[in-house]
């Protein structure tokens, strides 16, 4: 980019500017207040582990409290799916929040996760469904069960998202909305998996409406909440 006799190279670039002494004294006074009680400063890895632990404990607690695993159990494909999606949640948190500034995935990459993962999860739910009731036959009984299951999933996902937001609170002045959406995506996925682990219904529409849509919903909510909660 340098050109012959480049004046930009010859000029001295401006640097920092010393703030007025009175202002510095005021800021020092404000920031030194209350420093006596020191706080702990967590690393990104510690926050990541806490987030994943919250998810794992919630799933475990739900399986215990919810009267055991879904019919057919979590063995085999179910357990593999659960482990696989928990790994995806880990990747979402690593890519979205754990990586230090300057080493994160590009914004487009993180946006892509928000589009690709809810769609992939919906496809996964379609694949594990073992019943397909035509929408026209999706009667009142099915709807009530779907609403009940969906309500549980929303409450649990919202709790998980809030807990993860708390873990990452005020850590991201760069793109808090996008990071919040990724936290919502992670919370939505774990919530859907947790409720799915104990859900007795295997119908495709039920899984899609009560478990799948939730992931996109929580991502959008995470975007809105994260803009305030994750920004310092």
């Amino acid at each position: 980019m340098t050109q012959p006799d480049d004046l930009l190279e010859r000029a001295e670039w401006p640097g920092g500017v010393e703030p007025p002494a009175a202002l510095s004294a005021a800021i020092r006074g404000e920031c030194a207040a209350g420093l006596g009680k020191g706080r702990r400063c967590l690393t990104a890895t510690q926050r990541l582990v806490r987030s994943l632990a919250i998810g794992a404990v919630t799933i475990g607690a739900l399986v215990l409290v919810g009267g055991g695993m879904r019919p057919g159990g979590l063995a085999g494909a179910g357990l593999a799916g659960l482990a696989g999606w928990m790994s995806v949640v880990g990747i979402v948190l690593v890519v979205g929040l754990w990586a230090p500034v300057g080493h994160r995935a590009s914004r487009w990459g993180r946006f892509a996760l928000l589009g690709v993962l809810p769609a992939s999860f919906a496809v996964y739910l379609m694949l594990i469904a073992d019943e397909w009731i035509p929408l026209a036959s999706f009667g009142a009984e099915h709807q009530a069960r779907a609403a009940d299951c969906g309500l549980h999933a929303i409450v649990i996902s919202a709790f998980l998202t809030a807990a993860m937001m708390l873990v990452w609170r005020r850590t991201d002045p760069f793109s808090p909305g996008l990071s919040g959406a990724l936290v919502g995506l992670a919370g939505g996925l774990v919530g859907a998996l947790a409720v799915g682990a104990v859900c007795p219904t295997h119908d495709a529409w039920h899984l899609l409406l009560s478990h799948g849509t939730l992931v996109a919903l929580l991502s959008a909510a995470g975007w809105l909440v994260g803009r305030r909660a994750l920004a310092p």
Partner: protein
Amino acid sequence: MAVGASADGLAGGAATADAGLGALAPESLMVRYVEGDPAAFDALYACTAPRLFGYLLRLTRDRARAEDLLQVTFSKIHRARASYLRGAPVLPWMLAIARRSFLDERRAAKVRTEHLSDDGSLPEPRAEPEAVGADLSEALDRALLDLPVSYREAIELTKINGLSVAEAAEVLGTTGTAVKLRVFRGYEILRKQLARFRRFSE
């Protein structure tokens, strides 16, 4: 008063702070500050405040606003200190907080104000700066202030504050390619301005 023009060695401005702490990296100072060490805050302030103030000054082009924003920025840093991710680069974190404070303030001031002259009329457009006799660095300073904000910010973060392209992209909420493009276009404009200055001064 301009201090520490070099993009390396943030600790260069920490002369007033504790000599031992001044040698520490800002990341270590930040951790000690979070743990409750006031001397670490002094050292951290000494090495980062001039950069933040210079950044805000060039962003706002208004000394009083820059001073207010510096105070707001440090208040936010103080409140959010426990959420600093141990080991993460401090300067991009602080610059991003400063930039968000600037954007929040601009959004809050919904109506753009203009200073009226005594007779109530709008002020005259700014006169062309006197080029002859001024030195090259002053000309660069003025040319920087006249750059479009997006170009100026990209150059400010990469060239003046020494952030990497990826870090600057995070602070600005854009892509690395966009930052490179803004820097390139900003340089082109600056070169033209400086060439004009040289023609005047010869």
